């Protein structure tokens, strides 16, 4: 069911500054792509194009073609709401809404029009189970989401994204603000999710990229320098710049 992603000659400008230059890549269905590269190279920008969150930036211009499954992402007539429900997003800082745990997870379905309490409950429980949070919050669903720890909050955000039945997950440095134990739990989830969801994850942690991804894309100055199977990139990169980055000689 998971869709593939195809990007062709993607250019992004913020005003006069060009953030992505002619990025072209293809990601197969159910695969995990890790985006790596120095700070400011355009990783988040790339991610935010995929669910059109990029639209929020003032004076932004996007050119090229992006397809996620059946969605022509950059087409003028694309249903952005449907796209965003299909393409879920998890951010660097856990960003639960200031409401109860239940309401956080139920937010997406409710927005989409689901009103039946029984169905909502079922959806919330399923999503929390998928995000491996159920055991920790069962019976406390009426508590504020703010009472959870950082790691729990991040898994809550994952559960919240899962509750609208996405097929793609975008994760922008999802463990950057978490401790090692919480990080391990999230990595475990990503590995479990493989084949069910197509995933793109931005990370500064190269070991993490090696552990969870099927493919790695290395960006620099807005260009896609190199993309290949994870094993190949880490053991035998084709580009000198990639090798320098991986060995810390940036």
């Amino acid at each position, binding site marked *: 069911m998971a869709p593939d992603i195809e990007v062709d000659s993607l250019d992004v400008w913020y005003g006069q500054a060009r953030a992505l230059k002619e990025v072209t890549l293809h990601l197969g269905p159910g695969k995990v792509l890790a985006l790596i590269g120095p700070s400011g190279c355009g990783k988040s920008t790339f991610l935010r194009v995929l*669910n059109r*969150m990029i639209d929020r930036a003032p004076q932004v211009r996007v050119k090229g073609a992006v397809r996620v499954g059946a969605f022509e992402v950059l087409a003028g007539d694309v249903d952005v709401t*449907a796209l*965003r429900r299909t393409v879920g997003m998890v951010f660097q*800082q856990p*960003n639960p809404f200031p409401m109860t745990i239940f309401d956080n997870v139920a937010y997406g379905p409710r927005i989409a029009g689901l009103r039946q309490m029984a169905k909502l409950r079922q959806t919330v429980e399923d999503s929390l189970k998928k995000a491996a949070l159920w055991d920790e919050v069962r019976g406390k669903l009426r508590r504020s989401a703010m009472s959870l720890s950082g790691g729990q909050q991040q898994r809550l955000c994952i559960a*919240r*994204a899962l509750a609208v039945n996405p097929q793609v997950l975008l994760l922008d440095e999802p463990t950057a603000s978490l401790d090692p134990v919480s990080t391990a739990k999230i990595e475990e989830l990503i590995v479990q999710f493989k084949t069910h969801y197509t995933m793109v994850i931005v990370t500064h942690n190269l070991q993490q990229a090696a552990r969870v991804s099927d493919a790695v894309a290395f960006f620099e100055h807005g260009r896609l320098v190199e993309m290949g199977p994870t094993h190949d990139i880490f053991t035998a990169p084709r580009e000198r710049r990639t090798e320098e980055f991986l060995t810390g000689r940036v």
Partner: protein
Amino acid sequence: MRADRIAALVMKGALALFIAVWVMVAVIVGAGAWRFVSANGLVGPLVSSRWSPLAAHYGILAFVVGSMAVTGLALVLAAPGVLALSVTGARILRGAPQRAFIQILTLFVAVPSVVYGWWGLSVAVPLIRRLTGTAGFGPLSAGIVLAVMIVPTFSIMALQTLRQVPSSLVEGSLGLGASEDQTLWHVILPASRAGLSQGFLVAVGRALGETIAVQMVIGGQSRVLSLLKPGATLTTQLLTDLALMPARTPGHDALDFMALWLMILMAVLVWLQSRVRGMSRG
């Protein structure tokens, strides 16, 4: 070192003055109100609307009800405007237009209340007159004037609160397929609740305490609530009768009693607000 000590001294002095003034106000109002209550009872004046201080009839019911009605009306009328202006200023405009918008709103906060009263005489009263066929003076006109008056203050406070909602929350909502409107209603406004209720209190305080602008259009009679006939509030009657009953005259204590009730109304609101906040935290 020296400058520090001077600054500290100035601050302490200011604080001391502030406290002293407040203590003085409380003592004067409290003492007058106490004398009034010992002479006239606590409940009697509250359930009577017969106000004829020279004949020793001190029923303030009409003024208490008038204050609450005019304030409530103003809030209801102001709410849509506040929402529209604060959302426009916080979430739609950006950059230079946004700064200009906020500056203009701030300018309106500084407009003195007589000017709003004047506006009321020129616009609100004739409007009500045309719509209802009455003389146009009454609590309804006063409510409109107050609404116009509190919109800038309330909007600015709401706007600043809405602006502070982190964009991560907004993107979290948009990322789940919510529209901008859904995000506004279900995330931005709830997340701003504390700041909004603060702005609400300030608005209520301004409305409840406003005197001259209300006096100019309310008509000035002790009547328990007819929106279209002359009425009065605690503050307008205080203003009207201060000339009739200057300090150390027999009726003057009644004015302190009215001032006390103004403070009580405000205290009830503050308390209600803290309850609401407590609930939202739980």
